[in-house]
């Protein structure tokens, strides 16, 4: 009887969840929440504590400072100074990272948008085939895809061979020895599949009757694209850009594999790896942690911008 009454109550409130014992859903979530608290939230704090910690006077290894009142800002001071002054180590690397990421993201959009658009206009079996082909790289290990290019770009590799046959170059070009163009193209190649999917999802959702309406009202085809399709896919462009931008800022393996970690193509991620894995000295660990924090802050600003913009669009869509 009691259950029946609770049942009626639940249905009038519109939720089946209320029929279960109190705290049941919280209990089911608990292991996951606990795991993420201990191994996602705490690690962030550990980064901060290491960046602001001290150095063991005897062994020279890092000692994190868990008490925020006793944090010391030496490592942050060093990193920000090197980021700020125009001949600082991280200043050059940071500007290069920005340049590489900006060009690679632009390339990804130029390549990804037409493909996503085409995919969204397909129907039936053909679309499924195309979708599988476009999604496939998503599930091929990133490192494997870079390895493929290492093979192609060797001095006696296929790329040099083709370019020499076509007469574009006279002698083999050392593509893998610190060439910016290789790393940028590598980044674009590596990340473009991740951009296409959210873009496709956004373009697919556009109701074609909007395009018909624009057409009927006399818009040119180009005008329709610029004034209807493009604005309506803005969220997809933003989401896709966010998805590739964030990991690209922390990327170190592309530059490592495609240019041997040469200083002329070194990115922020390479510097972090150098500090954290190249030395066990406490000062290097703290500086590495400070650099990671700087990266995390930059990335969260971008994420925040994306989230605010998404929320705004959702609100506007609801109003209209």
């Amino acid at each position, binding site marked *: 009887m009691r259950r029946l009454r609770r049942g009626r109550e639940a249905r009038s409130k519109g939720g089946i*969840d209320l029929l279960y014992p109190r705290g049941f859903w919280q209990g*089911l979530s608990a292991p996951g929440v606990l*795991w*993420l608290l*201990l191994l996602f939230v705490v690690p962030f704090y550990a980064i901060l504590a290491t960046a602001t910690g001290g150095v063991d006077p005897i062994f020279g290894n890092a000692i994190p400072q868990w008490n925020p009142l006793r944090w010391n800002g030496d490592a942050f001071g060093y990193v920000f100074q090197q980021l700020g002054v125009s001949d600082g180590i991280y200043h050059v690397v940071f500007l290069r990272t920005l340049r590489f990421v900006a060009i690679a993201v632009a390339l990804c959009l130029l390549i990804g948008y037409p493909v996503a658009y085409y995919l969204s206009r397909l129907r039936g079996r053909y679309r499924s085939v195309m979708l599988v082909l476009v999604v496939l790289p998503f599930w091929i290990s990133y490192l494997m895809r870079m*390895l493929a290019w290492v093979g192609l770009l060797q001095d006696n590799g296929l790329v040099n061979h083709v370019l020499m046959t076509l007469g574009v170059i006279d002698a083999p070009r050392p593509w893998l020895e610190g060439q910016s163009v290789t790393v940028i193209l590598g980044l674009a190649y590596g990340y473009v599949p991740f951009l296409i999917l959210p873009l496709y999802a956004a373009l697919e959702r556009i109701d074609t009757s909007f395009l018909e309406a624009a057409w009927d009202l006399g818009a040119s085809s180009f005008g329709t*694209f610029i004034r209807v399709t493009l604005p309506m896919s803005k969220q997809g462009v933003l989401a896709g850009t966010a998805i590739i931008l964030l990991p690209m800022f922390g990327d170190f393996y592309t530059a490592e594999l495609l240019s041997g970690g040469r200083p002329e193509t070194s990115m922020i991620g390479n510097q972090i*790896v150098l500090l954290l894995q190249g030395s066990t000295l406490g000062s290097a660990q703290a500086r590495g942690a400070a650099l990671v924090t700087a*990266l*995390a802050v930059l990335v969260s600003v971008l994420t925040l911008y994306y989230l605010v913009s998404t929320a705004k669009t959702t609100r506007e869509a609801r109003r209209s």
Partner: protein
Amino acid sequence: MRRVRSLLANPWRKHRFLAAFSWVYVLWALLPVLIAIGFSFNAGRSRSAWQGFSLRWYVSDPDFSVLHDPLLRSAMAQSVKVAAATMLIATPIGVAMSLGLARWRGRGGNVSNFLMLLPLVTPEIVLATGLFFVFVHLFAFVSFGTTAQVFGHVTWAIPYVVVVMRGRLFAIGPEFEEAAMDLGAPPMEALRRVLLPLLAPAIFAAFMIVFALSIDDFVTSQFLSRGQTSTTIPMLIYGTGRTAPNPALNAIATVMLALSLSAVGVAVLMLTKVAKRRGGGEAEATGVVGFQI
């Protein structure tokens, strides 16, 4: 120019330019990988000049093949071991969490939901660094190598499981459980005997997807490794990709590719089948292959 423009916009026109562009893209995206796979069957030592077909680098070479080179064997074993353990730990936690979060109302639920999504937008190098420090300074009982790698991978995988499960959970809706309860089933029975069987294909798909994610992972494995014995296949590619003396590296990369693609293939098949049976179309399967945040 006019033609290009009209091709860009008219939804009824055959998109010849776009079709060509897209096919060129697919070729560009897949051909290099196919060529790399091809060279894993090379009879000679070169990774860039074709010298005939053989299985030398997989099985027959007594010193350097995937089957006989102890380094390659150990990397393969490590990759599979970490992926299997990750799959077995992350999937149950994630499945429970997806059910819980879908129905946990109020502030706690919202905060937990937000927390769950955060790893998806965090660059891997940041979390890997954090885990590295945590295992050095705080949870020192977690030893670097396999244990730390599994802990790291599970942290990444949980949100993916939740995202996969959530799609399926919304597609099923509460009606089946309601029906079961109207017929007299206590709530827990309805959950166990109605909802869980309906979710079974998605749970299975989640297992497969976690396996593939883990086997392809590089950054976390690398930051949390210790020594030769915890080297995984992607780490091997990173370490020796530029200097590898023969196509055995391509061969082991191909094996890894086969493992992760077949896992994902099974997952997609599973989800498309259920989606079709319920008349839901391919949206869910698409959702699996392209996680949307």
